[in-house]
């Protein structure tokens, strides 16, 4: 009834090509942005910002990165955690070697370092596909993590083998380090994530995105149509690793405040892969929904018994939340194998004809 595009006429090609062609969608996005930029910082508690929203945004960015590779280009990767690590370690090295340069510039630059590493490990993708490629990227995961542990230069010879985020300023405002206020970090994360999502949306809706999807759907056909496979696949690896790298740098610099090599282990890769699969392969919205479900649901479940006043041991809650999240994932995949994004799409279709379905 409310969600209906009847009467919204498009009079030029530009309007017809818009990412959100329906007015209600545009209003919805505007409301979400308003919530994120105004309501959450104004009314959210510290816990909500620090433990829920900031990591959610960072993981969303990482899963957008993986989605560009796995969802849009069809190249399965298990090296996400390691590529995030490359971003984090690169940012740490760059900012300790050149402390005068603004940290935000280094965060973006560390994405390029991750992209370069991603391209190297993406080279086998020309010859191998599917599960075999997953194994090849697994090699990246193990090799890079090995480097994080074994190369003391990466951590500036820290005896505890950890990176500690130094204090860095933007003008007069502290953005990283323990003295950075929560809201500064939140807005930094939010702005980077929103901007990079916008860029990703433009990439996937444009020529490059179409090339990727052509490769995903049938790479031989794509090649016959004149798409150069090596370049396209490597570009996907580069862009994907860039996103993961920036997400990794943000993870350490704007959320954790310090990290060990263990932070970027294989579990991190799986964590992001689950987000992409549950959220929906080949959907930017899905990346957000997946991150919300995989990251947010356990937190919610942990808070639930306390809020309801049911006394429960923290370990029991943990076991319960493992069970419930695992069960939900299976249910979601059975009900809708294409992920939450597809579920949302179906809901939209139903909403259009509601309340008089035909």
């Amino acid at each position, binding site marked *: 009834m409310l969600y209906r595009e009847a009467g919204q006429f498009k009079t030029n090609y530009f309007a017809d090509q818009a990412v959100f062609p329906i007015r209600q969608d545009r209003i919805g996005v505007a409301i979400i942005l308003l919530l994120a930029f105004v309501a959450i910082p104004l009314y959210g*508690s510290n816990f909500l910002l620090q433990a829920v929203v900031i990591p959610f945004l960072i993981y969303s960015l990482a899963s957008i990165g993986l989605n560009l590779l796995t969802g849009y280009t069809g190249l399965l990767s298990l090296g996400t955690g390691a590529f995030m690590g490359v971003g984090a370690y690169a940012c740490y090295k760059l900012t300790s070697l050149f402390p005068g340069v603004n940290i935000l510039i280094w965060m973006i630059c560390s994405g390029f370092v991750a992209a370069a590493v991603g391209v190297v490990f993406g080279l086998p993708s020309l010859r191998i596909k599917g599960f075999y490629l997953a194994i090849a990227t697994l090699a990246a995961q193990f090799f890079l993590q090995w480097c994080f542990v074994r190369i003391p230069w990466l951590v500036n010879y820290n005896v505890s083998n950890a990176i500690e985020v130094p204090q860095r300023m933007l003008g007069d405002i502290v953005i990283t380090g323990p003295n950075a206020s929560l809201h500064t970090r939140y807005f930094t994360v939010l702005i980077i994530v929103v901007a990079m999502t916008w860029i990703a949306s433009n990439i996937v809706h444009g020529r490059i995105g179409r090339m990727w999807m052509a490769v995903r759907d049938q790479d031989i056909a794509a090649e016959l149509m004149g798409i150069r496979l090596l370049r396209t696949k490597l570009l996907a690896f580069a862009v994907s690793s860039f996103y993961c790298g920036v997400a990794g740098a943000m993870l350490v610099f704007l959320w954790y405040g310090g990290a060990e090599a263990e932070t970027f282990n294989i579990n991190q890769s799986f964590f992001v892969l689950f987000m992409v699969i549950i959220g929906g392969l080949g959907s930017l919205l899905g990346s957000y929904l997946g991150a919300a479900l995989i990251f947010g649901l356990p937190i*919610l479940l942990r808070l639930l018994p306390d809020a309801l006043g049911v006394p429960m041991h923290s370990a029991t809650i943990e076991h319960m939340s493992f069970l419930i999240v695992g069960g939900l994932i299976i249910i979601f995949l059975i009900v809708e194998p294409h992920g939450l994004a597809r579920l949302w799409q179906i809901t939209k279709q139903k909403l259009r004809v509601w309340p008089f379905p035909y």
Partner: protein
Amino acid sequence: MRLKALMVGAVLAATAGAPAFVTAASAQDSIYVPLFSYRTGPFAGSGIPIANGMHDYLDMLNARDGGIGGVKLAIEECETGYDTKKGVECYESTKAKSPVITNPYSTGITLQLIPKAAVDKIPVLSMAYGLSASAVGESFPWVFNPPATYWDGLSIIMKHIAQKEGGFDKLKGKTIGFIFFDGGYGREPIPLLEQFAKKYGFETKLYPVPAAEMQNQSAQWLNVRRDKPAWMIMWGWGAMNPTAVREAARTNYPMDKFIGIWWSGGEDDARPAGEGGKGYLTLNFHGVGSNYPALKDIEKHVLGKSQTQKDKFAENLYNRGVYNSVLIAEAITNAQKITGKKAVTGADVRRGLETLNITEARWKELGLPGFGAPVTNVTCADHNGHHAAYVQQWDGQKWVKITDWITPMKEEVRPLLEAAAKDYVEKNTGWPKRTEPCDKK
């Protein structure tokens, strides 16, 4: 379709309802002590007894004495699963309830919390783990890691080896193997080990065990068999320990030449090796067994009601949890004494930790005579104290104390710590200078 709609609705409702849960009540009539524990995940085997010991001792204080200084302790566990992500989440969710102390129980989590401690005014007690450099109180006023650092541990092990060999000069030309968890924790003692090797003229062989290979160490032990080191030193945790002990027994390595750090000395680390584990050595800094009045009190007041299994009561790692809680309780007691307040805050407890002074008489008063070496060296400048530890041996059934308290080589360790702390502060531009005044003991 209805199922789908229902699910969508449930998810939406849950998301909308989320902020409602994010409320915190801070009670003024109690002292809030959060315990970060890990009863789940790959390290649960070590995490459960520690969590039980910590929780039970504080519960016992509540039941027996009505808390500390007449104020009840509000104890809450937060499950970290040894995962840094969840640890940070735990920290944030407990922060709202104004905790007086944080026990991260994971080096990874400790590292995240070190810079935050000063800002949030909550002291971090990382008991014999965490960042070694945080022993330097001038640079880390809010972080404490008594009773000893890993480097102290290594120096105690070296002392023990030298004593068995008949003096440090006898080490010349010998080979000492070092098998370690290949991460920050295991790599930390290497610089000191190499320094010792140079000084005393022995050779070191390093056998790293990667996290993913913790339960498969046959390759490392094949190398051990080839290299035939005179002594083996281990820095292990979790599933790595029992595997190493079993492999050592299988390769017929003499168990009484195999010595682990205090984190490698659980009953469940030695027991699975069966007869072969007999003779295995580890360091320890507290007593084992339940033969202490305070532990009897736990048995009387708490056991049965808590999560502790009766047959696991007063095992080594359980008692380590108790030791940890004694430090917490003592810090709170001191804080009450210094400030005269009853419901103390994190800032007060920091002062309490700096004046930590558990003499032999005090141990007795606590109902734990001889449980630990006197913890008397913690000062404003020294947040560790470099206290003594002893060597214990597995007799096939239980741990037996075989040496007296051995003091670490502070003169070797301290300069390294100071250098590490200086390095840390230099690299973290803008690291705050200490402004906290120092209390007299």
